[in-house]
């Protein structure tokens, strides 16, 4: 099976400090690949390089065989990459429904003059996006909050809204940055089910998550980072037995000494 996403020797430095160094792995369609590691291991930095927010210093990112290294996020979106954020990035003053519709931007956009004059073509595109958005909100259990202003939702609901918005792109690969962070047990389980269901539909999922139980439960493949380097990789059972991983998570003295 050819990989949907290949990360090859990816690295970046901030002011001489190597935040991520020579990290390689692949992500397969329909599988959940998780990146784990202690705080400051470079997980989010890695995510930001893959999704075009940061320009990598070294290495390549291949999406479906195409070199997309450092490509702008909106161009990656057109190629089927979608993501959520560790710190929520919600369109606060828009309604929940509008947030979800915004995810359909690529399919609903059209000539600006058609939008200004509310031509039938513009209204049709908007109506289609709205129907799609309502379906997605139902899928993440937010259909009853559709008309509420997004800023008033609970944290867990906003996390699900972000996933709905990301799914609106019909992505080939979905990057989830700590989707369960700050959620209670019930919410975590809901998000859990949602991610597994999305993966079953054939979407490749790349996940950064702190909740180890969740990672072990749903991942097909795990990549472990520590101090910006990949220290282990494999299925959940193999990774949880790996001495280097255990040392990275439990050997706090060594980690603290390095700052």
């Amino acid at each position, binding site marked *: 099976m050819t990989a949907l996403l290949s990360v090859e020797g990816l690295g970046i430095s901030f002011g001489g400090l190597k935040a991520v160094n020579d990290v390689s792995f692949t992500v397969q369609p329909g599988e959940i690949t998780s990146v784990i590691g202690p705080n400051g291991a470079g997980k989010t930095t890695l995510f930001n390089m893959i*999704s*075009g*927010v940061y320009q990598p210093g070294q290495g390549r990112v291949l999406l479906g065989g195409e070199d997309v290294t450092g490509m*702008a*996020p*909106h161009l*990656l*979106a*057109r190629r089927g990459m*979608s*993501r959520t*954020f560790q710190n929520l*990035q*919600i*369109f*606060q*003053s*828009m309604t929940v429904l*509008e947030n979800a*519709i*915004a*995810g359909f*931007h*690529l399919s*609903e*956009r*059209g000539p*600006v003059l058609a*939008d*200004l*004059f*509310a031509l039938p073509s*513009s209204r049709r*595109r*908007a109506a289609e*996006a709205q129907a799609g958005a309502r379906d997605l909100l139902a899928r993440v259990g937010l259909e009853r909050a559709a008309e509420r202003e997004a800023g008033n939702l609970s944290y867990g609901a906003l996390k699900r809204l972000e996933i709905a*918005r*990301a799914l*609106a*792109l019909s992505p080939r690969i979905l990057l989830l940055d700590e989707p369960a962070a700050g959620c209670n047990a019930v919410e975590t389980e809901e998000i859990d089910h949602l991610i597994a269901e999305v993966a079953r539909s054939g979407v490749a999922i790349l996940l950064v998550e702190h909740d180890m139980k969740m990672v072990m439960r749903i991942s097909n493949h795990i990549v472990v980072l520590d101090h910006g380097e990949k220290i282990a990789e494999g299925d959940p059972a193999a990774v949880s037995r790996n001495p280097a991983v255990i040392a990275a998570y439990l050997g706090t003295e060594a980690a603290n000494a390095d700052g």
Partner: protein
Amino acid sequence: MKLTPKSATLLVLLVLILLSPVLFPSGYYYRVGALIFVNAIAVTGIVILTGYAGQISLGHAGFAGIGAYACALAPVHLGLHPSLALALGAIISGVIAFLVGRPILRLKGYYLGVATLGFGILVSMVLNNERQLTGGPDGMEVPDLGLRGLLKDAGLDLTNGQFWYWFCGLALILGAWLALNLYNSPTGRALRALHGSEVAARTVGIDVARLKLRAFVISAVYASVSGSLLALQNKFITPDVAGFMHSIEMVTMAVLGGVGSILGAIFGAAVLTLLPQVLTVFAEYEQLVLGLVMMLVMIFLPQGLLPSILRKIRGKGE
């Protein structure tokens, strides 16, 4: 039947424009009304740029200047009918906004403010210094639109004030309709999204630079049309129309009334156009009182006049 916010806004606007003349104590107020509408058109453009897309411009009077001088110059030098001169001014403003906007919309916040400010000053300086073409600071005459004469021939005899009241009122309704269409359209949604979070907007595929540019061009066309209408109704124009104070006035009207809503911004335009007329009773303290009113509104009603008032009314209703 429940009205959509769009129809409700247009209905309120239509009723206000149609009924206000009943209250006018003299024909002079038709002129004040027309001036409100002209300002409101420019401010509607500011709502698209600032209220929807979250970008600031302190130089939009530059585009009003281009629109105004297009109506003064094109009929004389190109032999165009004044109405076509208005369209030409709008096209030139749009093209210049496109060229200027591409580099400066990369800037954010007050950097963008200062860059747009520079653009406005540039236009104002050109109009002041090209004496042979523009008459410099003394200004120049603008030819008659000719529409009032045509209406008179058709049996509809309006005073100059009445004609411009109804003509600019119609233009404002059209401008508001377009802006309201935009709000709930794919483009408007993308503008509001990038206002909320640029990074999230990018990840859903929104070409942020391109959309900001669209908002800038559209708002420039509004400012240009506003400048043209001002020139045509005054039949005389000076470089003040492109001046710094006029740019600030547009932003102030929008923010004071409520930059998030079309009706609010139009309300702001009305208040700030009327207030100086009312405050003449304060004679030399007029500017002082005006400044004070603006400060008090921003301190106590930071959402802008209209949204705050509406919230109060709704709050009491519940």
